[in-house]
């Protein structure tokens, strides 16, 4: 299996912490990964986005040496996951979908145990545990059992356990699923602080705002393939959360007219704020007119449309701003892919 190709990413591990090419994994009839490519630049927080069942977790589990690949090749931290799993394991941290900590041992005992299993001496394991407790704001809870922790605290202990050796690559598989907003922001803060230590973070999520808050770069995975490059969404731009939002994730303004006769005027008012001079879409049967507006200008656009409607002497049934969900974003991206294939 070739490691670099003219159109693929180079296999240079100084530049890329993770390089995967043509990964395939099949479970029975289901192709979990179907020629998945990935190149994660060193030192970035890389968001792997995709709908449920797209293959995000399978990809992470292969890169963490937990499951074997059926085809393709992957290097993590400069080592091949299939032939050098031990070398890979020394360079990675994993925080899976559930906080993988011992519920009965105290926070400190957990970190010391993981330290020993990373083959630190007992004094070093103790010292490293104290540092991590401090770094993740758990010093006061050091003597308590995780079963008495909040979701956010448990996640932070989980993160700390992945950071024993300050790994070169940290994999976070949906790190905030099931957390309340406070827990999520605690975890986000913890993850951001990690990037300061130079760790490359590979994050899977199905929350757009999470990718937006944390990731420098993103890739969109759909039905086992990386569809980032084939998607027109980024139009050659660097795939960042902002670019994704600009392309498909900007706010949408929606106006519901009183009667059908008003629609042309409503379209005119909405067209003034539409992103990149795009044409507003009309749904005649529901009397709705909607259009994407540039990122961050939703409220201004709303005010603008309301003013033009007023100036035109039109009253409307409803006017509002909608944020597309990530599911809609995926739908847009995958529809493009299906159309391209057809």
């Amino acid at each position: 299996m070739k490691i670099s190709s003219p159109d693929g990413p180079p296999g240079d591990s100084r530049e890329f912490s993770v390089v995967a090419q043509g990964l395939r994994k099949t479970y029975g009839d289901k192709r979990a990964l179907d020629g998945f490519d990935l190149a994660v630049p060193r030192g970035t927080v890389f968001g792997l986005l995709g709908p449920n069942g797209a293959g995000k977790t399978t990809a992470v589990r292969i890169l963490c040496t937990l499951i074997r690949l059926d085809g393709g090749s992957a290097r993590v931290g400069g080592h091949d996951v299939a032939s050098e799993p031990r070398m890979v394991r020394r360079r990675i941290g994993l925080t899976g979908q559930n906080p993988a900590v011992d519920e009965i041992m105290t926070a400190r005992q957990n970190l010391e145990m993981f330290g020993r299993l990373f083959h630190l001496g007992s004094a070093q394991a103790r010292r490293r545990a104290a540092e991590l407790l401090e770094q993740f704001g758990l010093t006061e809870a050091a003597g308590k059992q995780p079963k008495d922790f909040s979701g956010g605290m448990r996640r932070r202990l989980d993160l700390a356990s992945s950071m024993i050796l300050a790994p070169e690559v940290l994999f976070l598989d949906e790190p905030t699923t099931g957390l309340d907003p406070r827990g999520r922001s605690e975890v986000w803060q913890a993850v951001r602080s990690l990037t300061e230590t130079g760790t490359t973070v590979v994050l899977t999520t199905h929350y757009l705002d999470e990718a937006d808050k944390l990731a420098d770069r993103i890739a969109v995975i759909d039905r086992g393939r990386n569809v980032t490059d084939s998607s027109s969404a980024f139009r050659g731009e660097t795939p960042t959360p902002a670019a994704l939002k600009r392309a498909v994730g900007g706010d949408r303004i929606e106006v519901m007219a009183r009667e059908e006769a008003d629609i042309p005027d409503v379209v005119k008012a909405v067209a003034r704020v539409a992103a990149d001079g795009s044409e507003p879409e009309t749904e005649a049967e529901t009397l709705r007119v909607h259009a994407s507006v540039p990122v961050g200008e939703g409220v201004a656009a709303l005010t603008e449309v309301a003013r033009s409607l007023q100036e035109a002497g039109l009253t409307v049934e409803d006017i509002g701003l909608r944020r597309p969900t990530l599911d809609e974003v995926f739908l847009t991206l995958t529809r493009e892919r299906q159309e391209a294939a057809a």
Partner: protein
Amino acid sequence: MSTTATATDTATTDTATTDTATTAGPVRERRLHWALADCWTIVRRDLTHLAKQPSLVAWQLGFPIVSVLLFVFVFGSAMDIGEGVDYKDYAMPGMFAMTMAFGFMNTAMSVVVDKERGVTDRFRSMPMAPSAVVTGRGVSDVMHAALDLMVLAGIALVVGWRSDGSLLATVYAFVLLLLLRFSLIWIGVWLGLITPNQEAAGNLFAVAFPFGMISSVFTPPSVMPDWLGAIAMWNPVSATSNAVRELYGNPLPAGGSWIEQHSALMAVVWPLIITAVFMPLAVRKFQRLSG
């Protein structure tokens, strides 16, 4: 390739620098060293659990203790196994064997909990010796079983059970009981790995119950219907029960069949067979967990 240029470069202190030292020296020796060290770390984890939850032992012993009270004091007077035998002298060694037999559920439950919480995945993604997760489980379960036996034997002594065998025979009897428990660890690990979640693991009792009870634990197979008696006779739990009864010098109603005449042998052979079959299965399943 430089194995020292690891991620530890970015660590805030000199932690983990010893890790790099492990790259020197003969590989095989180092592997063995870490396999043992990691196993001990896992055992210590289980000992910590035990220290933090002494009630765990009490819960696990709940069933045998209640059984002791029921069978010795409630049904005991109605139990006549012939030859003027005091029933508790017959039932106690059986109870020891049954506790060992049910032990595989504890193993399976611990394995399921770790798997479900993702702790097993974390271990598998770490540079520790992969064998340690399984061997650590084995060592701590045997230690746990030894503790269970001590408590149970203490209770048995209180209700009047005695071993009339020599000290050596008595010790050997306990070793045979632990051997049975040891062999069942592999069934427990294997079942724990193929069981989807904790709820499903609870259903393992439906397997454990007949396995423990359709045996010579409470009554000699000779009083059962022929077909059931045959199953009970060949049950590994029966072999261990009868072998330890002999060693303790406790009454053992004579059985005519080959299997009943050779319980001392079978109490060793059965665990060896079980281990030979299920240890490879368990290790293989562990290595290929989730694909």
